[in-house]
């Protein structure tokens, strides 16, 4: 056994495509910036109840709306509530919606797309027809309708948004699986007699993962946008809960007198979207198999 370990140490260490991609990603300054922002954001979000400077509902009616100051870095709203605190709590909701709805989209989309792509034939044709038909539906109108009809529950929001975003995911996954299925290394695996589950887990999934990760990263900002959009129209998150979209909507109403109430939540949303998009773009460049060939 000892000789074997010694043997192994003698081997040159190979760089897997993942390691390669990581090296490329680290060279991309914007992507690294994006990743760092997101990590910081997630930490803040998790710790919000501990580190928020004021209580979420803590009012100070005498104070009213004041511009940013040492006591209130982002200023206060008309009820004298600390905006920084509210932005932190709003971020929890915005990020949660983004992550959970993306997960919903991911689960449905991957299952649907992978099945269609790997089974192929008539099953594939029917499954993708359904996706095409759903694509033709004006979903944004439907979501508004759903929110109106069933009230503005968070759960419904996750489901509704996830239900829209899974379509593209299904298409991407199917395309990936289809092209991988036709690769010679899959034929080689089949000619060796490997079982289907073995081929899927060892050969198909690891190779389809890259684009799925990229798309999932890019779906999060889209979902957050959608949530903020609905909240802005008054159809998303309901008070007393708050999200960045709600804060922007409230800020827009009083922006002539208190522009900071619009600007800070807006900045928070924009920077987050920026970070996620940069990370997504960076991941796409890093995981691009064309780039790794030479």
């Amino acid at each position, binding site marked *: 056994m000892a000789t074997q370990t010694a043997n192994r140490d003698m081997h040159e260490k190979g760089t897997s495509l993942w390691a390669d991609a990581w090296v490329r990603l680290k060279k991309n300054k914007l992507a690294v910036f994006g990743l760092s922002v997101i990590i910081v954001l997630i930490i803040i979000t998790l710790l919000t109840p501990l580190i928020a400077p004021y209580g979420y509902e803590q009012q100070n009616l005498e104070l009213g709306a004041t511009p940013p100051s040492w006591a209130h870095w982002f200023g206060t709203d008309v009820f004298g509530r600390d905006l920084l605190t509210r932005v932190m709590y709003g971020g929890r909701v915005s990020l949660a919606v983004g992550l959970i709805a993306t997960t919903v989209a991911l689960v449905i989309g991957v299952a649907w797309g992978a099945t269609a792509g790997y089974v192929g034939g008539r099953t594939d044709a029917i499954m993708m027809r359904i996706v095409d*038909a759903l*694509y*033709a*539906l*004006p979903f*944004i*109108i*439907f979501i*508004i*309708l*759903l929110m*109106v*009809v*069933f*009230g503005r529950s968070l759960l419904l929001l996750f489901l509704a948004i996830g239900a829209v975003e899974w379509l593209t995911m299904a298409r991407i996954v199917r395309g990936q699986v289809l092209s991988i299925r036709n690769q010679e290394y899959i034929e080689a695996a089949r000619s060796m007699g490997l079982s289907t589950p073995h081929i899927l887990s060892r050969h198909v999934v690891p190779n389809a993962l890259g684009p799925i990760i990229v798309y999932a990263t890019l779906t999060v*900002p889209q979902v957050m*946008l959608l949530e*903020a*959009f609905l909240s*802005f*129209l*008054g*159809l998303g998150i309901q008070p007393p809960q708050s999200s960045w*979209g709600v804060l*922007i*909507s409230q*800020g*827009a109403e009083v*922006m*002539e007198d208190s*522009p900071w109430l*619009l*600007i800070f939540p*807006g900045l928070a*949303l*924009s920077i987050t*979207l*920026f970070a996620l*998009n*940069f990370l997504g773009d960076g991941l796409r460049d890093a995981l691009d198999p064309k780039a790794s060939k030479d």
Partner: protein
Amino acid sequence: MLRYIGLRLLQAIPVLFAVITATFFLIRQAPGGPFDAEKPVIPAVKRALEAKYNLDLPMWQQYLHYLGDLFKGDMGPSFKYPGWAVHDLILSGLPATAELALYALLVALLIGVAAGVSAALKPNTARDYVPMSLAMLGICMPTFLLGPLLVLIFGFWLQWLPISGWGDLPGDKILPSLTLGAAYAAYVARLTRGGMLEVMSQDYIRTARAKGLPERVVIVKHALRGGLIPVVAFLGPAFAGLLAGSFVVETIFQIPGLGRFYVQAAFNRDYTMILGTTIFLSTLIIVFNLISDLLATWMNPKLRNQLSTKAGGNT
């Protein structure tokens, strides 16, 4: 070709039908009806009103009634605005929305294509980074944030442009069109850049250069056609997005358009108005998707031929 279009339109009918049915039954699941207004209505009056609008009939009968009327082109009366028919309301809101969407689309295409092509011709230089960073900004600066910010800057602080209305004051169409078009200009720019980069690396561009064609001809005649196909295919989804964006923009700038009507109808539980608007907007979106699809297909000779052989049937 005509047959293909006909076929596609035929396929759109079940989709539309599903939209109508789903919307009809969904909206009736909503808690609270149109006459549960702020002021309590006398039960007898409420019953009379409900009878007038067939709301006392079993659900499936209401549904059939509605379908029958719809077939005759009648979307019924608005519940909230007595004396107004839904299609009149829609028609009154349509011009502003259509104009807004058109200007926004022009903004998106003109700025987007120019920026994208310019970036693709000099990749990884300042001419690429600057417009593409702006595009990223456009994508990360959603309509409902950009709108208020533009109002704040150009309306309140600089006082250059009016902040609300549509066609009432000179220049009041500029901010809404820019607001709505900006995000799509960004998407178009990114798509154009990607498409052009892909095409410019093709062998046939090298052939065109080897023929000694002026660079302008190489780009416009040989590259742009293929490079713009993704953009054209994006126009359908973009249009749906523009309509959704118009809800926000019309709310921000107080434009009396369809989008604002729709949002208000949704709040007021104006059943017939929601149904009518949903059907109308869905039809628009489906038609636009079809047009953008056809256009993208037609732009590719290989697919164009498949179209005509399929449409031509057993020739």
